């Protein structure tokens, strides 16, 4: 038989944080430190693609990043563009796919296509 009725406490009902919250929190923290910060977001995907639309990566001016926009194969190229955007470049949409020779060089080997929006946090 159950005993007396204990009450639920706030600590018991706290949900776990989502990956995306960690990315957004890190972007805000870097910005608060005065670092240049950019966000990269998956806009659209076609075919096989490891990260769905809305997935985000935050990167600072030192090239440190959290989060992901692919299985790791295009992060390098995205970070290079992100550094340019945070240095004053316009926000931009990057396209990667097997039909794109440059993208193939950076290794989107899964056979899909993906568009990434890159913007500074200003």
């Amino acid at each position, binding site marked *: 038989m159950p005993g007396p009725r204990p*009450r639920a406490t706030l600590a018991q*009902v706290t*949900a776990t944080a989502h990956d995306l*919250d960690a990315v*957004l929190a890190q972007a805000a923290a870097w910005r608060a430190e005065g670092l240049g910060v950019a*966000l990269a*977001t998956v806009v659209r995907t076609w075919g096989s693609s490891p990260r769905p639309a*809305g997935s985000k990566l935050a990167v600072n001016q030192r090239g440190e990043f959290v989060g992901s926009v692919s299985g790791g194969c295009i992060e390098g190229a995205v970070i290079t563009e992100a550094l340019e955007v945070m240095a004053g470049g*316009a926000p*931009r949409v990057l396209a990667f796919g097997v039909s794109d020779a440059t993208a193939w060089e950076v290794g989107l080997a899964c056979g899909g296509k993906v568009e990434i929006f890159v913007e500074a946090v200003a």
Partner: protein
Amino acid sequence: MRAALLAELRAARAAGRPVVLATWLDGSDQRLCTPADAPAALTAAVADALRTDQATVHDAPTPVLLEPHNPPLRLIIVGAVHVAEPLAQIAAVAGFAITIVDPRRAFATAARFPGRALVTAWPDDALAALAPDARTAVVTLTHDPKLDDPALIAALATPAFYVGCLGSTKTHAARRTRLGEGGVAAAALDRLHGPVGLRIGARTPAEIAVSILGEIVATLRGAA
């Protein structure tokens, strides 16, 4: 993104307030919106993004990325029984934040459920504190009407998108009668999934968990 907008977005997520981040991909504009305050041309697309929980691009007249930021999916499992742990495991992998409720302290122990959020309050009190929303599923597994019934009565009074109860067809009929006599409206009873789970011939606890999560996902995605 302006730092102020980033702060607004984080605040909305922390408060569990559903919003859509709309980003004009030509860089001309970016803002948070809901179906109530979105530009007229985007109202339907903003509502769709929140409902499906999928980011989309609305192309006309210029491409706008619509990213839904919904509160996290939650699964409240009432009954720290043998099916609870495999269900918690596969549901966690599917993106649900898990809470296991059982006032029987011999059942709801950290040793049996390492790392799980355990609530040892009575189920109706626990559900009042957990406040299920439209992104929450509630499943009762105890087989004990003293525990299941108060949980189901409380859950059916919330916007939880899924309420299910483990039990046979026969016990489910008895349950419906009991809950109806207890004042639960017929329309609310029709929301109750029982016997719980998709019919996949599940036998083991893990297979039963797959069947339950399958039904939860089918309900969430409008395929049930």
